[in-house]
């Protein structure tokens, strides 16, 4: 069950077809395909913001999984549990990001702990980020990195709410692997 009908390949609008060219494009694309002009700008944005960039994959997945778990997004938490694991994070680190253990027990690097605090403050709000959280972050990251990571938190929150509100289904391949790796 989903909160919205997912567009199948044979009904894919013209501007959406390229996303179906290599098979199942995933639930986010299949939902966004209802509004193709939004899909064609949203997907490059999502790919650029969440994908490979000047910031390493571990750092980005740390933000994505943490925000997704704190926002209670089943789809994003499940999907990025695997993505985070694939960056080489330990099981204890992934479990902590999923909210199953305290992060300060699993992470020891002050840079990563500062980023996790920043992620929580940006994602959960409300209002300004506390000065102490900002002060802890800035020594570890250059301004372009702060901008990119803050946008990453915001984009993740957007996706968290989108996927949760529309009850998007986690792919069967992801569910299978989660079960195999004992994350179910």
């Amino acid at each position, binding site marked *: 069950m989903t909160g919205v009908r997912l*567009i199948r390949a*044979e*009904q*894919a*609008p*013209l*501007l959406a077809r390229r996303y179906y060219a290599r098979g199942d494009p995933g639930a986010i694309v299949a939902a966004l*395909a*209802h*509004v*193709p*002009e*939004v899909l064609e700008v949203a997907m490059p944005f999502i790919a650029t913001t969440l994908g490979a960039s000047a910031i390493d994959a571990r750092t980005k997945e740390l933000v994505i999984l943490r925000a997704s778990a704190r926002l209670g997004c089943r789809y994003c938490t499940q999907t990025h549990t695997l993505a985070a694991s694939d960056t080489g994070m330990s099981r204890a680190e992934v479990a902590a990001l999923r909210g199953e253990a305290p992060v300060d027990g699993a992470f020891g690097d002050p840079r990563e702990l500062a980023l996790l605090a920043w992620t929580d403050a940006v994602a959960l709000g409300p209002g300004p980020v506390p000065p102490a959280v900002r002060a802890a972050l800035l020594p570890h990251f250059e301004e372009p990195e702060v901008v990119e990571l803050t946008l990453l938190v915001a984009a993740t929150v957007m996706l968290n709410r989108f996927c949760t509100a529309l009850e998007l289904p986690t792919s069967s391949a992801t569910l299978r692997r989660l079960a195999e790796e004992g994350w179910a």
Partner: protein
Amino acid sequence: MSEVAEAVRDGVLPGRVWLYANYHCNLACTYCLTESDPRAQRRELGEQRALAVARQAADLGFTALGVTGGEPFLLPYLPELLARLAAILPLVCLSNGTVLTERRLERLRPLAELPAAIQISLDRPEPQANDAMRGPENFRKVVDAIPRLVERGVRVRIATTVDAIDDEQRERLCSLHRRLGVPDADHVIRPIVRRGRAVDHDLGVDAGPADLPAELTITTDGAFWSPFGPTVHGGRLDTDLLITRTTMPLRVPAAALLRLVRARPPGTDAQLNIQ
């Protein structure tokens, strides 16, 4: 000159913009693309939106309008709307020709002075064969309405939609439309497209973007590639030929359509004489 105007001038983009006035109809033809019938959701485009689309189409450089449905003449305001649209751009309005009462015909009289035509469906030269797909009394009502439009000076085109028609039958049909006052130049014969109700009746030819003219088509559900795009099957709108949900400003779907047309491989122009 806008990019769209240049594309229309150069023949890259067809000049006509179609408006889906509504989706409901007094008939329930077996090959109807939109599963229209008296109980279908109206999904009306609306008078003001139709006029706004027409004005923007003219501004962008499109050169003609088409109005279709559903049966557009079920909309009480249609005769006057057609006159206002035809004052903006040359117009053809598709109709089944069965609801053209004397009063409506009189209200259509101003179209005689405007670049406008009413395109009426007539598929076979005999009532029985024609009405088998289009419903009882269809033939009688159509051959009654056409001369009364012609008498008033309104240009009538006839559209014949068939899986196949032999030479003898086609000649009888052409003799009929000539007798009704419609010249050969205003008679089009086109295949049934296998979409909508035609799928359930195993009728027609499959048609995709390569087969259908890239005519920008505006509905209340969005903008589509060709008037054969916004079809309905199983009560659900088909989205495979959807361009954008945004219809206004018209430059948004027009620009998207132009991008799609330019991205087509060479040699993939419309093949099926679907018009």
